[in-house]
């Protein structure tokens, strides 16, 4: 029971990060029907931006308050990464719109390779650590066997920031004209244009929002693990993509749900079975779910009544 609760906390933390990345995959897929393979690397890049901004804040500017530093780091990382997201769409995907279906996919893989290599060349191939930021832990209870169930401040921050941002994001998508334009383009781009919606601009905005949420995930990742490397885009990226597919690609709540499920499977499997096979477990669950629910947990069927 103690182990279970501890792993539940860990799993939800990890799942929050996956969920934030997964939204970027699912939104882009929803609007242009393309899997943005570069999204994991955008996430990795954002963690590097966060790292640099953090070092600038603490070492150069001498900001003593961790909370303030973290806030600045997150905002700057979101802005810079959003700009990357916008540029990537502009350079690598928009020129290929209207081309055959595989073209933007290949371009995305190329962009993924470019981003990880760019960071490797610019920042070096070694792991980049930061001094530990938030160390405190709340001990919830100590079990009879001496096992301590703890909730760290880091985990609280990660889950709280994720919840707040997802709420804001949900409000934007559901209640603002921007969100309605986004959903209209997702359902019928041709009709959206007939109603005066600038489809290209809406697609750009989708990439910007996806990248900004990935930057939140990147900042949280850096806060949680305290280390990042140029290769860190791949595995979390694939996991988040898996989360998006598991939840039902194109569905926003599905992306978050999928992220949490993948996070939980991973941590639970590590605790009760073997840590080496945690990824195998996560992907096996994906395969099994897709056999019985081909459109994911909250996804909608491919064919719609016309």
């Amino acid at each position, binding site marked *: 029971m103690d182990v279970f609760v501890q792993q539940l906390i860990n799993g939800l933390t990890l799942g929050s990060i996956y969920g934030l990345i997964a939204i970027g995959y699912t939104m882009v897929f929803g609007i242009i029907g393309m899997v943005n393979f570069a999204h994991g690397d955008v996430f990795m890049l954002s963690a590097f931006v966060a790292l640099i901004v953090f070092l600038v804040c603490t070492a150069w500017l001498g900001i003593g308050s961790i909370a303030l530093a973290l806030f600045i780091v997150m905002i700057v990382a979101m802005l810079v990464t959003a700009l990357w997201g916008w540029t990537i769409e502009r350079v690598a995907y928009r020129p290929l719109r209207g081309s055959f279906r595989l073209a933007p996919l290949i371009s995305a893989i190329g962009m993924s390779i470019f981003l990880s290599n760019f960071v490797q060349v610019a920042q070096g191939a070694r792991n980049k650590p930061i001094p530990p930021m938030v160390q405190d832990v709340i001990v919830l209870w100590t079990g009879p066997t001496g096992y301590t169930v703890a909730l760290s401040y880091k985990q609280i921050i990660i889950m709280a920031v994720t919840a707040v941002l997802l709420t804001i994001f949900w409000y934007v998508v559901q209640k603002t004209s921007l969100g309605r334009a986004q*959903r*209209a383009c997702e*359902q019928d781009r*041709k*009709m959206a244009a*007939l*109603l*005066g919606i*600038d489809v290209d601009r809406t697609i750009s905005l989708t990439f910007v929002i996806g990248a900004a949420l990935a930057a939140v995930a990147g900042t949280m990742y850096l806060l949680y693990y305290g280390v990042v490397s140029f290769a860190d885009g791949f595995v979390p990226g694939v996991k988040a993509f898996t989360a998006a597919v598991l939840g039902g690609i194109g569905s926003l709540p599905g992306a978050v749900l999928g992220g949490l499920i993948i996070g939980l499977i991973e941590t639970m499997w590590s605790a009760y079975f073997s840590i080496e096979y945690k990824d195998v477990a996560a992907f096996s669950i994906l395969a099994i779910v897709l056999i019985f629910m081909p459109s994911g947990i909250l996804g909608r069927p491919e064919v719609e*009544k016309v």
Partner: protein
Amino acid sequence: MSDPTAPAREPLLTLRGVKTFYGNIIALKGVDLDVHQGEIVTLIGANGAGKSTLMMTIFGNPRAREGTITFAGRDITQMPTHEIARLNIAQSPEGRRIFGRMTVYENLQVGASLDGGVHFEEDLERVCTIFPRLKERLHQRGGTMSGGEQQMLAIARALMSRPRLLLLDEPSLGLAPLVVKQIFDVIRELNEKDGMTVFLVEQNAYHALKLAHRAYVMVTGTITMSGTGAELLADPQVKAAYLEGGRH
């Protein structure tokens, strides 16, 4: 194609020598057409004549490869689709294309997004008066409504932007005769009360010709005939081709 019955003013919408292609296949073979302020103009023709292509060509999707399209004195031939819409042309397109996963209310909101929604409440009231059925269904998802209701929604959505020109593509398609009559009554009322300019594409030639001030007949991408609605209704050729079988 000068028409003696047309008012003398500068037309609101003008098409001159418009040619549209799908790949190498020609769909419109040089269309000339005018719609004047305050008119109901209809375009009739058989399946595949190019009527819907013409509607979409006005919006630049597909784009006319030759010829010019002018709206309110501006050349819109090469303008992006959303900018054409922003000149206050609205379309209820072929197949209705309502946003099925949005509520009726949200569909109307998207329709009103052009003017930033400043008149939203007022316009919502107005379309709900025109189509009381929509008022009952405001918070239902568009995709769950019947064909007739979806058609009403498509027209209502187009009206939300307060268009200067309303394009209607086959509003009667697949609907029960009673609903068709209702929709045609609405079009007439919009025109008479609000002075709305309407360009109507129809297969239901009898109703369309009775409603329209002027009409054009299209056969495989070419305008073959034009005149007032009453003239075409009495024309033996039109009768033979489009009104036989007493489809009214």
